[in-house]
């Protein structure tokens, strides 16, 4: 898929996020939107997956360690064909498989239940370790929030992954700079993020989370890196794509009301039309 096509998909993913969170009257739009291009790149370009055979043993795996931004993952998976796009608006509703945080027992294609911060990355490390033990070629991707890396377990997992030289593992940090209580640098700074991962024996790549060329270069570099896991520090904008949500910590975990929903969807429709003109 070329980058214009990816951008179009990402715009649809953003619409799916807004529609789902609005319908649920709850959820996390900010971090879902900041990761929308990453989800799109992973599910439409990077990963070896088959929506028709979601449990294929040799598939690449994805663990959403920052599980609260699952609306973005659901939207990407729906557009990739794992389940109907119409299902997105059942998010967080009774009886829906689309739980508030990822649940592998409810959705085929979710590789690990997650949401309690810091835990998903350990499971991803376990999957990567299994791949090495069994001499499999599959790769494992896990997406973390930059606030999430305040959790100590992340560094336990990083120490193990570096120690075991798990070069089939890619840790992506969605570096939107904001957490619930404000700027991550003010709350309890995790910076420098790159030097931390380097110290844990990772290869570190910086990327622009909203530029598909940059994402491609980063994931290609990760794939080419042997003998150590890769951490991609993806600089992003929280709320990206919806003007009034961008760079606002207050949109971390709040759903848009009807008026805000209309405004957000109008902006995304317009962005989509602009992409079609290209």
């Amino acid at each position, binding site marked *: 898929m070329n980058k214009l096509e990816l951008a179009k998909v990402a715009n649809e993913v953003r619409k799916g996020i807004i529609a789902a969170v609005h319908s649920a009257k709850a959820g996390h739009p900010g971090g879902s939107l900041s990761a929308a291009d990453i989800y799109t790149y992973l599910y439409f370009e990077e990963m070896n997956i088959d929506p028709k055979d979601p449990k294929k043993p040799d598939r690449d*795996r994805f663990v959403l360690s920052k599980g609260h931004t699952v609306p973005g993952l659901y939207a990407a998976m729906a557009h990739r064909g794992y389940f109907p796009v119409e299902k997105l608006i059942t998010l967080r509703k009774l009886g829906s498989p689309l739980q508030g945080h990822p649940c592998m027992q409810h959705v085929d294609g979710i590789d690990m239940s997650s949401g309690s911060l810091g835990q998903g990355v*350990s499971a991803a490390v*376990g999957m990567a*370790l299994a791949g090495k*033990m069994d001499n499999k070629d599959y790769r494992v991707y896990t997406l973390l929030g930059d606030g999430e890396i305040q959790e100590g*377990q992340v560094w*336990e997992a990083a120490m193990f992954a570096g120690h075991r030289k798990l070069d089939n593992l890619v840790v992506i940090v969605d570096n939107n700079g904001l957490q619930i209580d404000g700027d991550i640098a003010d709350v309890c700074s995790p910076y420098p993020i790159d030097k931390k991962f380097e110290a844990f024996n990772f290869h570190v790549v910086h990327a622009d989370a909203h530029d598909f060329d940059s994402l491609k270069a980063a994931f290609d570099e990760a794939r080419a890196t042997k003998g150590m896991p890769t951490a991609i520090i993806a600089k992003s904008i929280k709320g990206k794509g919806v003007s009034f949500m961008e760079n606002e910590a207050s949109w971390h975990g709040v759903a848009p009301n009807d008026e805000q929903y209309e405004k957000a969807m109008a902006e995304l429709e317009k962005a989509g039309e602009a992409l079609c003109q290209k």
Partner: protein
Amino acid sequence: MSEIKKVATREGYGKALVELGAKYPNLVVLDADLAAATKTSMFQKAYPDRHIDCGIAECNMIGIAAGLATTGKIPFLSSFAMFAAGRAFEQVRNSVGYPHLNVKIGASHAGITVGEDGASHQCNEDIALMRTIPGMVVINPADEIETSEAVKASAAYEGPVYLRFGRAAVPVINDNPEYKFEIGKGIVLREGTDVTIVATGICVSASLEAADMLAADGISAEVINIHTIKPLDEELIIASAKKTGKVVTAEEHSVIGGLGSAVCDALSEKAPTPVCKIGINDVFGESASAAVLIHKYGLDGEGIYNKVKGFLK
């Protein structure tokens, strides 16, 4: 007592893992820098490529085991009960319990028989913690033989299991050809009519001793070994409670939330019966040898005997 063979249940765990390693090529063992103490070092020696030392990072170990399980491996992970069930409770709950992954938690050094290390390491709360997790099987074997069988049954069972082992050598009581282990099935070790003693773990052999002492006083005690606290063999316990009309529970665990509570939960709803709970009475332990502590906290034969006598008065 000196003629009775004594072996720590953790020994049985180490030996059983080695046996299972041959049967299941997908069985892997994880430890957190305690392989010598938890006895997974035996497996490490036999199958070095399938033994994963995670270092002193129990929470991460649980997650790695969960990830391994999603690929079809059967991970047995080990640490002390304090860390496996205590420190990593939420990881067990969310990364293993919620997705119902096929992870086995072999927790050694449970209860006060940790001994000299003292209260910081004496976990009297793990049964309570683990049995609140939906779908978690909780097993506390009474001796080396039961441990071995429990570990094998856990490997064959699909789903999360918490296995509780002790540090101290305990009498081997199940060394007989009729012995059969089945998850969730209690075992009547001694029939009686005046009182039912429901015991688990190291308190099973102590309860048999107590029953002998009670018999000398003309009291007929039924002794039931409940190795599986969850799912609890309610049917067996209720039938015995209806027969004897009085139930005593005995465990090396807090009286809050463990076997005693599980038995009370079942009886209060289905067959209300007076129950006397023997265990650690909502206090922290302390440093001393296992034998001294078992005596002090009333978990030996004499302690159980005295408690039952008082209860029957």
